[in-house]
């Protein structure tokens, strides 16, 4: 390990602040008085329960949908199409999805306008709680929309580790239907591979504010939103309450993850006994149809959410049943454009710096463990750490440390906090891509007289270019979407699209939020489109270059 400094540096950049942040959170958050004030807050029990409920249910639904979708797509030969459908939704920041869904599903939202008055008879928005409902159903819908896509991608990446086609074929020749073959022969192996991403989904589901602010229940809100309000309160006494609360959030999350592991063992047992029964389910076309319909529904909702953001952001007055806003177009943009330009510039600068610095950290480390799958997995697990803890808990600790070092609110501090969340994705994409390059190319280059540095620049780097461009776009998008890290490390001095959108959504101003949400949604799409287009253009006449 010590002989490979790039790996040590990479892991240290991520793990040191994360662990120090957690330690600081424990140190400064443990305060009996604050705890009793947290527990004495009216509705706090319900609030915690609502967090755990929404996070867990959404994770279970997303996991099932993702497994079924990948199984169906791979055995049905439309894997690339599933990829293409998933990526745009995956690239959409949680905040934008949340705001978009709120605009879509609200009683006066686009969905109701589509159906009114011809189907519903409503001339005025009905007095229904379709978003921010007490059962957190709209929040769960938002989480499912995002996390299904995330898990589909995680499963697709895991497919490379498993001889899925042969296993599936084996089960099918024994008479099992395609879906049952997948679920019994392939899915359990994939499940082993995605334990970390799955835990990250559960942790995010329970502790997120990005979806819970626009979609989560109102009275009481989810626990993370409650904490978020306390953090943004002016009263320092309330702050100490928030500190203690983050530890409670950590506890609730950890307990749920442990419970989930128990349940998943149970599920494995049930699955195993269902195989031993020998039922074939050989004709599963109906089930396949249901799954496909669900996926299409999910995707349509995602697209409509973007449409809702666009419509709302350009509209001024918008009388209820009218599907399109009347006149007064772009007036909202005129109001915000002077500051929006500045916000966009800071957002893009941060995201670009995150992507470039992240790449510079990851590439040498990937180089140093290209022959060593075990080290790659270990590094990956370490880099995953920030995604396995509630963001608020360790970010609060990080903030305390930054203040002590007197560097809170600096660009470097915010950039570093963004790196913590971009590095696991960069690693997940680039480390396997680097390892997959045939080492003999470099040996050929050496025998032809190229020293290692020249061989790397002229052979390895070009072969890695496509993955590198995608990785840049991915890290860029991750940074665009980050809200809490900017808030905590930036000391409120950095106005990005995410902080502005969250603040506007938090104060109930969805119209203002939609403008920033549009920026949030568009920037990652531009980045990914750019990465794909430039990769294809660079190698437009080179069929043999790895994708």
């Amino acid at each position, binding site marked *: 390990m010590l002989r490979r400094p790039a790996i040590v540096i990479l892991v240290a950049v991520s793990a040191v602040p994360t662990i120090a942040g957690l330690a600081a959170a424990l140190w400064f958050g443990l305060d009996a008085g604050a705890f009793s004030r947290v527990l004495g807050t009216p509705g706090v029990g319900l609030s915690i329960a609502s967090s755990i409920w929404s996070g867990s249910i959404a994770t279970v639904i997303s996991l099932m949908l993702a497994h079924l979708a990948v199984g169906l797509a791979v055995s049905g030969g439309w894997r690339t199409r599933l990829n293409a459908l998933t990526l745009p939704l995956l690239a959409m920041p949680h905040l934008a999805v949340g705001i978009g869904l709120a605009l879509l599903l609200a009683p006066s939202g686009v969905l109701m306008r589509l159906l009114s008055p011809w189907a519903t008879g409503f001339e005025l928005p009905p007095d229904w709680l379709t978003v921010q409902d007490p059962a957190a159903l709209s929040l769960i819908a938002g989480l499912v929309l995002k996390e299904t896509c995330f898990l589909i991608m995680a499963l697709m990446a895991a497919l490379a580790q498993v001889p899925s086609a042969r296993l599936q074929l084996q089960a099918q020749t024994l008479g099992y239907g395609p879906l049952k073959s997948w679920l019994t022969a392939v899915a359990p192996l994939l499940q082993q591979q995605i334990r970390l991403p799955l835990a990250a989904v559960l942790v995010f589901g329970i502790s997120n504010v990005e979806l819970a602010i626009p979609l989560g229940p109102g009275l009481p809100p989810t626990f993370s939103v409650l904490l978020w309000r306390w953090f943004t309160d002016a009263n320092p006494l309330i702050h100490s309450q928030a500190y203690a609360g983050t530890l409670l959030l950590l506890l609730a999350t950890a307990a749920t993850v442990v419970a989930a592991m128990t349940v998943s063992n149970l599920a494995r047992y049930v699955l195993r006994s269902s195989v031993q029964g020998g039922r074939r389910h050989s004709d599963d076309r109906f089930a396949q149809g249901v799954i496909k319909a669900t996926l299409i529904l999910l995707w349509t909702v995602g697209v409509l959410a973007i449409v809702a953001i666009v419509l709302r952001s350009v509209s001024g007055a918008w009388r209820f049943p009218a599907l399109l806003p009347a006149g007064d177009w772009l007036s909202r943009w005129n109001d915000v454009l002077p500051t929006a330009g500045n916000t966009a510039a800071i957002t893009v600068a941060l995201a670009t710096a995150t992507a470039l610095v992240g790449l510079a950290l990851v590439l040498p480390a990937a180089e140093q463990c290209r022959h060593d799958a075990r080290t790659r997995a270990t590094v990956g697990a370490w880099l995953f750490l920030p995604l396995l803890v509630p963001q608020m808990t360790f970010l609060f600790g990080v903030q305390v440390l930054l203040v002590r070092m007197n560097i809170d609110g600096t660009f470097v501090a915010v950039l570093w906090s963004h790196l913590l969340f971009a590095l696991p994705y960069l690693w997940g994409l680039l480390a396997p891509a680097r390892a997959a390059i045939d080492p*003999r190319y470099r*040996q*050929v280059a050496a025998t032809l007289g190229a*020293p290692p540095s020249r061989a790397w620049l002229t052979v390895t780097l070009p*072969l890695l*270019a496509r993955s590198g461009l995608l990785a840049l776009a991915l890290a860029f998008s991750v940074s665009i979407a980050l809200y809490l890290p900017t808030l905590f490390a930036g000391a409120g001095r950095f106005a990005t699209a995410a902080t502005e959108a969250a603040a506007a959504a938090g104060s109930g101003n969805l119209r203002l939020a939609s403008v920033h949400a549009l920026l949030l949604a568009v920037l990652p799409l531009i980045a990914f489109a750019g990465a794909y287009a430039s990769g294809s253009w660079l190698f437009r*006449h*080179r069929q*043999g270059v790895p994708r």
Partner: protein
Amino acid sequence: MKPLQLDKVVLSVDGAALFEPLSFSVLPGTVTSLLGPSGSGKSSLLAYLCGILPPAITASGAIRIGDENLGRLPTEKRRLGLLFQDPLLFPHLDVAGNLLFGLSRGGSRAERRRRVDEALASVGLGGFADRDPATLSGGQQARVALLRVLLAEPRALLLDEPFSSLDDDNRERVRKLVFDEAHRRELPTLLVTHDEQDVVAAGGAVINLSGPNADKKE
């Protein structure tokens, strides 16, 4: 050209030698064939000569070109031409780019390009300079790979079963081309192969790597 000499070369895995100490020399313009079952260490021997031995294998013994000891030199300074079983043309460069990568330094841009075009024409691939290597047939790729090695002006040629991935027709043509070039340029050539016909065509010394433990194994 000077001969390629091996002096008491031994490769070992976990302290166990793969074969008895090996000493021989390959004279300029001749082809020595290296035979042996898989796992006998014949490909690893070529890797050792080039300085690209995997860390799991340790080696001792001297390698020389003429009087120059190669053992301490990094791969890129040894100037030994290595042809693998696969052509391994760089997929991100066109045919000319691959050859320019190999071509030794010096000359103006136009001069270098002219030499590449001439080389291509000499093996019947005139006009292929701008092609994507992925669109070439196996035999064409093998010829480009050979040119790439020759343009680097190696002091010896090391062939790791370079004909085995070709079909019968191409195999014979490419083999003749490689041996003719080795002969014409007076390159000492070491060929690793399974194929009896390769050995016959090479027409030089034959070294059998059966290993010190070969008798005990089966």
